């Protein structure tokens, strides 16, 4: 089977050698000089995103201040066949914003304004560089908030959230980014400005809003976002339930959902995560527990009372060894403190950690957690699990030390094995962090060639030259063949019809 034109185009772009001095000249001719960075010390801060194991110094960084400047930068790059990697706050965990040494990094960091707050329609129009939390802060006095709340919300940008279709603790009840935006302004690869979606609840023609969300900067540059706002619940309360067995905790998650309750958030920490966070923030977590569940319910006062009683009954029936209910908002914050500090806490007990993101059916939680434990022994590396249990979205954190020769490579192999374990249980390799560069090989395991070819064809419809974030998110079939040659899955060689390179 022939690879598609788009994949070929991307391969050409990846291998291209544009003339840096010439490109700077062309950009400076049309843009203010201070928005173009090209000295090494100015480029350095952009060399990686949240997946810091991967670093590349971009050829040039453009930091536009207006949509017109984004359009001009895109037009120049398009005319000169130069690749563009968009970047928000750079907190992405899959290397989606990893620069290219032969490409332009387009940072949206200066787009920091909230342009409009529309109370009557409960919406806010914001620039893409606005931090996720800044939206909720700006509308808090109106009793409103923006629901998707990635743990990185103090830092990550709404543009990055749209590009990744980010989730958060409260997405179990309130949905992901895709459920909470109504309109986008984008700049296409050719530099044209376009409106996607509308201020009504639907838009004639195809649902391009759904397609743009989660497209990892491969289909267009997001330059404006209209988000939905929700009324803040009257009250929220958390149940902390401890278990002496991971299996019981996993089953309790399924039981809560089965009881007809949709909690606002339902998170799990396993013992290594509990111990590490407890040492760090002293949230008074039971450090002897095999796992704890944090189950938040919200709504009106009466509703919260009703559901807290239900949740308590379910977790007790499922064998919880200890159940605590937050008495007030201060205590609720303490219950959450450990969860929120879990990633930095890992940074204290290990020089580096690698965060995985597979999602599985809830019923497979216990089996997959036990499977990850077995893999951890096999690879001789520690793992802590802290994750969105209610959605079945795992975040195994593999602890490693990049200074030890070969440990990063072993960690990545371990991570790949976790992805495949999730696939074996009917899951996906990524629930919210995206494929980026990190999980590109596992895409070959998740998707057969026909699906990958279809993805490339869709990309081609938006970006026929393959200039937007090439080499990310969707692997070429050649890459899959190479990966397959190294990696024989279940005794079957994937892509048997392709020549091995």
């Amino acid at each position, binding site marked *: 089977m022939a690879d598609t034109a788009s994949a070929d185009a991307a391969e050409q772009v990846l291998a291209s050698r544009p003339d840096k001095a010439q490109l700077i000249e062309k950009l400076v001719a049309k843009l203010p000089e201070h928005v173009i960075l090209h000295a090494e010390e100015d480029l350095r801060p952009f060399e990686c995103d949240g997946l810091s194991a991967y670093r590349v110094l971009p050829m040039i960084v453009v930091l536009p201040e207006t949509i017109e400047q984004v359009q001009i930068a895109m037009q120049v790059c398009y005319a000169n066949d130069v690749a563009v990697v968009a970047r928000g706050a750079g907190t992405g965990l899959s290397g989606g914003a990893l620069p290219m040494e032969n490409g332009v990094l387009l940072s949206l960091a200066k787009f920091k304004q909230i342009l409009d707050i529309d109370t*009557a329609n409960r919406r806010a129009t914001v620039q893409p560089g606005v931090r996720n939390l800044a939206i909720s802060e700006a509308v808090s006095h109106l009793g409103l908030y923006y629901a998707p709340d990635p743990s990185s919300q103090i830092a990550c940008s709404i543009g990055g959230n749209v590009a990744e279709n980010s989730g958060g603790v409260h997405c179990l009840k309130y949905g992901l980014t895709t459920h909470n935006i109504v309109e986008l302004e984008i700049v296409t690869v050719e530099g044209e400005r376009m409106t996607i979606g509308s201020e009504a609840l639907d838009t004639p023609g195809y649902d391009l809003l759904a397609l743009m969300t989660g497209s990892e900067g491969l289909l267009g540059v997001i330059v404006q976002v209209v988000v939905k706002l929700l009324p803040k619940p009257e009250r929220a309360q958390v149940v902390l339930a401890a278990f002496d067995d991971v299996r019981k905790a996993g089953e309790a998650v399924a039981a809560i*959902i089965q009881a007809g309750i949709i909690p606002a958030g339902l998170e799990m920490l396993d013992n290594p995560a509990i111990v590490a966070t407890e040492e760090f923030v002293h949230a008074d977590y039971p450090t002897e527990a095999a796992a704890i569940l944090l189950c938040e319910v919200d709504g009106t006062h009466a*509703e919260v009372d009703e559901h807290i009683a239900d949740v308590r009954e379910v977790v007790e029936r499922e064998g919880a060894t200890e159940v605590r209910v937050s008495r007030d908002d201060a205590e609720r914050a303490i219950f959450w403190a450990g969860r929120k500090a879990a990633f930095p806490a890992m940074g204290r007990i290990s020089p580096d950690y690698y965060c995985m993101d597979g999602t599985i059916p809830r019923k497979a939680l216990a089996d997959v957690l036990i499977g990850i434990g077995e893999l951890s022994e096999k690879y001789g590396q520690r793992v802590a699990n802290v994750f969105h249990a209610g959605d079945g979205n795992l975040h195994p954190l593999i602890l490693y030390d990049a200074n030890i020769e070969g440990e990063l490579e072993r960690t990545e192999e371990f991570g790949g094995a976790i992805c495949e374990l999730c696939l074996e249980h009917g899951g996906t390799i990524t629930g919210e962090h995206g494929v980026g560069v990190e999980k590109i090989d596992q895409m070959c395991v998740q998707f057969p060639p026909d699906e990958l070819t279809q993805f490339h064809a869709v990309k081609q419809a938006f970006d026929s030259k393959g200039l937007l974030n090439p080499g990310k998110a969707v692997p070429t079939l050649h890459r899959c063949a190479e990966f397959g040659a190294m990696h024989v899955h279940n005794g079957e060689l994937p892509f048997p019809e392709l020549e091995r390179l």
Partner: protein
Amino acid sequence: MKTSADQSEHLRERVAEAFAKATPLHIRGSGSKDFLGETVHADTLDVTGHTGVVNYEPGELVMTARAGTPLAEIETVLDEAHQMLAFEPPHFGENATLGGTIASGLSGPARPFTGAARDFVLGCRIVNGQGQILRFGGEVMKNVAGYDLSRLMAGSYGTLGVLLDVSLKVLPVPRTQVTQVFEHTAAQALEQISDWQLKPWPITGAYWEDGKTYLRLAGATSSVESACEKLGGDALDDDRAFWHAVREHQRPFFTTTDRPLWRVSLPPAAPMLDIDGDCVIDWGGAQRWLQSDMDAVALRRIVKEAGGHASVYRGDALPRFHPIGESIMALQKRLKKSMDPAGILNPGRIYPEL
């Protein structure tokens, strides 16, 4: 009667054959939504024989079913487990299928509060225009591997692929439901509904017709009761039948005249538009049904200025869906081509260009 038959291979062959010969296909379920969009003049590809619930585990909140499965059957199966399709899809006919429901992307009165059909799509299997069976998304709650082509299928009217199976997120049926009625003019209703939504109340329907606002509350018993207390209004008897009639266009407003019927989609708080005719308001203001003899171009101009779009449900105006801008159309044509290079899947159903 529950039937189950996997005709994936047959459907794939039909498309592959049509692709080879470049002859178009008219993809059809029960035909309950034939009145939407434009008529496709082509051989019919009947999907009603491809039926059955493939996987349903209430604890996972996911159901996967074949596209030809009757919607009514799906709702019965869900109801037995006290679950539901929270986007409350209209049937518009006794034999409406799941495939037609998703392909047309229609949602009922709960839409602004619980989400649209596309919001509940988790994954699907399709036959693309080259006769390949492809699977996108999955049966898990969160999935960002690859472009979100499964949500794109919702509302694409079969023009991008023949749906084989769809995986949907389902939700528990609320424990309690009531509807309160208030006397309002249309303008008062719009303002009031907008204000109510600033409160954390479990609103799942907001409809206005002929001087009355109907507000549906559904959720935990305690929260429905406490919201009712604060809201006042008169309780509506047999509210389930009422909302069913709204959803299915069986209220007298829809059934007693033959004037052209428009669906006007607007930002919810948009004021009442200056268009001659009769109007009812659903979706808390975001979906307004209008009977009007006004010229289509003039009507659409007014709607567009208010930030919305208008499609024809009854009447002869063309195109039936609101025209879209040139560059967006060019992009949509390329997208269509990427999935259906020979242009054989329901050509012209949405717009002549697609």
